[in-house]
């Protein structure tokens, strides 16, 4: 018998080391979240961890602040529209991408994910100039366009992955049974990629909910998204209200992730 080894060397030595590494990684990732969530429930007046006593006062305060609630609503609205529009466009782009073959298909993929590859600030500045040119500068529609653009690649990547899972023979089988292109799309392709579409939508939503730089440059006068509103708030008051707002955001994200998990599970079922 030889000692079990693998690429990383001796297992008996490596396993505990790996374990430690992973624990550290999780601590590193979760510490800020735990701190902020903990701080949001504090009974004291300062943003502090561990919290001093427990209370929901900062949540009450958050919902009492019109600027923060407006920001939250704005973010939710923009995020929802972003999710819907990006998924619809990404489905069409994904289908188009399948038809494009050979040399061009690679360029098409790159083109569709470009907003991920260019620094956000540059895209934002470019958009600002462009939107002013078409007289949409500092408008909700302009902001919305920016969010759609920045979130599109997330929806696209997820939907293309789902489309790739649908074998061509299913489309051919459907056609041979008399279905038109649209019928094949509606009855075969769409149901099969639906989990991927929903996933793409959720990613796009979360991304939009998170965007800061683009929102900062494109926001309409007096129309803050939640991250902007929070930042403004923190500039003047360093109160646990911000922690409550952050916790609400985290909660929304976890909800999204849970949904994605469920959908991934669904996709595996086929």
């Amino acid at each position, binding site marked *: 018998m030889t000692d079990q080894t693998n690429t990383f060397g001796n297992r008996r030595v490596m396993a505990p080391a790996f374990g430690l590494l992973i624990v550290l990684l999780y601590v590193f990732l979760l510490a800020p979240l735990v701190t902020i969530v903990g701080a949001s429930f504090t009974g004291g007046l300062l943003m502090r961890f561990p919290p001093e006593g427990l209370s929901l006062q900062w949540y009450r305060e958050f919902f009492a602040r019109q600027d923060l609630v407006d920001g939250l609503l704005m973010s939710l609205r923009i995020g929802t529209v972003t999710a819907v529009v990006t998924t619809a466009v990404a489905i069409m782009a994904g289908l188009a991408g399948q038809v494009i073959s050979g040399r061009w298909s690679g360029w098409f993929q790159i083109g569709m994910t470009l907003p991920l590859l260019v620094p956000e600030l540059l895209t934002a500045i470019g958009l600002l100039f462009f939107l002013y040119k078409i007289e949409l500068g500092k408008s909700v529609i302009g902001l919305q366009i920016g969010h759609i653009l920045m979130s599109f690649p997330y929806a696209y990547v997820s939907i293309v992955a789902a489309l790739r899972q649908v074998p061509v*023979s299913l489309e051919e089988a459907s056609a041979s049974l008399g279905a038109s292109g649209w*019928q094949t799309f509606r009855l075969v392709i769409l149901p099969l990629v639906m989990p991927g579409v929903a996933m793409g939508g959720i990613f796009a939503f979360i991304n939009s909910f998170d965007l800061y730089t683009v929102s900062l440059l494109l926001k309409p006068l007096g129309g803050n998204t939640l991250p902007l509103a929070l930042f403004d708030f923190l500039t003047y008051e360093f109160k646990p209200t911000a922690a409550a707002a952050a916790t609400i955001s985290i909660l929304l994200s976890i909800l999204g992730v849970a949904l994605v998990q469920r959908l991934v599970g669904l996709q595996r079922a086929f």
Partner: protein
Amino acid sequence: MAAVEVRDLRKRYGSFLALDGVSLTAQTGQLVTLLGPSGCGKSTTLRCLAGFLDPDGGSISIDGSDILGVPANRRGFGVVFQNYALFPHMTVAGNIGYGLKLQKRPKTEMAERIADAMRLVRLQGLEDRYPRQISGGQQQRVALARALVLRPRLLLLDEPLANLDARLRDEVRWLIRDVQQESGITAFYVTHDQSEAMAMSDMVAVMKEGRVAQFATPREIYQKPVERYVADFTGEANFLSCTRVAPVAGGYDIEVAGAHLRVAGVPGIRDRAELLLRPEALSIAPDTGQALFQGRVEKLAFLGASQHCEVRLPDGGALKLAVQANRPVGVGDQAGIRIDSEHAWLMPEVRQ
């Protein structure tokens, strides 16, 4: 029900010529097999028939009318795929009823026809299962039922048995043949398994590099192949080069491995020829007087019903033959070989 004529079909992928003038016909109710090694263009031909591919040249007509301009979804052909291509999000009944639903048939008619189709392929009781909940053999039968329920003019099957294990393959193969004959549907069947092709087909097209090497009945393909490639692909075969060939009425006088004999063969052979001897045309002679060839037994394998035997001839050629199971032969023995010249066939020799 339809008679199909494929004429001079051409298809290229980039610079690669996948189909180089394929011509075939199928009479109403016939099952025509496309047989050939991987990459010879069987699927490409079938996909042109189905309308999934546009050929670059040639024509396909059904009962005299050209169908190349007709899109796949208006051709009314049933297609069965190697990987079944069942819709994973629909039940067995949903899959089979898909085409009927598209035609907006009344509920009662749909239910009836789905039930009929399921009975035809012996799948009763599985209506509400999803494809992933049934076996491969059952999935292939669902695929068959789904194609048949629309009463297609033409049934196209691309290696429908390739993903099944040997026992199931037999079962589904006969099912396909029975159903096809019962319903009198014209069918094209793609396979690279020669025994499948022989057993099922009315006509076989042996394909070679984008062309049809021979198009004939299974019997003719096996007994009277036009070239070595066809003979090789359709079963065990021995080839002996002839040293002299002279055409005579109804055949040829030849000299082969020192022996003279008269055989039938491909018409029009001039000089170089080789003799095809199927293993069953050969036997070990009880006494050397009846033997045409003499040789030494080089290999022997007991197969149960018979023995597989290889005999080396003095001029270097080798013959494979089947010997009765209890015949006392041993490796190293001298053996006289008798041939049944009825089953010998002369073909032009192609220099490789």
